[in-house]
């Protein structure tokens, strides 16, 4: 997997990204789906700008802001977890992964409260085109956060069992890459759906 090539700057340059290549293929497929979703949103908005601008104002931007901070911070914690296992510090790796999971839980709680608020107001995917995109996009992403958390929890459990080391930690890198993908998608979703008008 990791074929190191010495660069002219004497840093290690890899031929493949960190983690399992199969996971990266999966990540790229997921990114492609989200790219289509985002593009569809932008072009659907063209058909009725006034409607999208009006209903965007009813979204809870503060919750989305908190969730963005949570995902970015969770991603940072995962970077630290990978750094820890590369140093053969398994306990630190587990701690950083658990901290990242806390950020994931925070995201799910905040987003669930937001959904509950919409539910109380009677908002559904049938309400209008804006809500159809908003609910489907954010819920699709919500499911990916849950998936990412399951992966991180499994990686943390295996790290706790001592099944990763400085020499063998592809699983940690793969889980980290997936979690970064979840963060990456939200970084576009947040401004597109909540801010740009």
């Amino acid at each position, binding site marked *: 997997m990791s074929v190191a*090539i010495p*660069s002219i700057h004497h*840093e*290690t*340059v*890899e*031929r*493949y*990204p*960190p983690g399992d290549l199969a996971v*990266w293929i999966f990540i*790229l497929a997921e*990114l*492609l789906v989200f*790219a289509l979703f*985002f*593009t569809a949103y*932008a*072009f659907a*908005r*063209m058909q009725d*700008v006034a409607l999208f*601008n009006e209903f965007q104002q009813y979204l809870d*931007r*503060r919750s989305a*802001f908190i969730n*963005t*901070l949570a995902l*970015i*911070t969770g*991603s*940072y914690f*995962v*970077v*630290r977890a*990978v*750094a820890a296992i*590369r140093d053969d510090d398994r306990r630190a790796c587990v701690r950083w992964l658990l901290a990242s999971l806390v950020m994931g839980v925070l995201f799910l709680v905040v987003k669930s409260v937001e959904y509950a608020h919409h539910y109380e107001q009677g908002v559904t995917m049938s309400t209008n085109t804006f809500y159809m995109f908003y609910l489907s996009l954010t819920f699709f992403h919500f499911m990916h956060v849950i998936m990412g958390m399951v992966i991180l929890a499994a990686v943390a459990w295996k790290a706790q069992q001592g099944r990763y080391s400085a020499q063998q930690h592809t699983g940690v890198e793969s889980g980290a*890459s997936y979690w*970064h993908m979840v*963060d*990456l998608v939200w*970084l*576009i979703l*947040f*401004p*597109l759906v*909540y*801010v*740009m*008008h």
Partner: protein
Amino acid sequence: MEKRIVFGLRVCTWVWLLMLLLTTLTYAIGERGLSGLAISLGVLGIALLKGHLVGAWFMGLNQVRGLWRWPVTLWLLIPGGLIGTAFILAS
């Protein structure tokens, strides 16, 4: 990458702090109700920059040579370009 120290902090920590700052800027723009094509494209640009930071520094793609260095960048640029185009056409 993760262990390189700049001004007393790891590079990844600086990247994290920068992304928090850029996110706060985006939120402030939304809260102030700023709108219009230039603002939207600026906010989109900030998002693409943050995405690039995640790809390069968190996913570690700045340490990768060749084809695998570019998928995330392309993922940002192609939909980003299409979103920008849609907003321009809608304005």
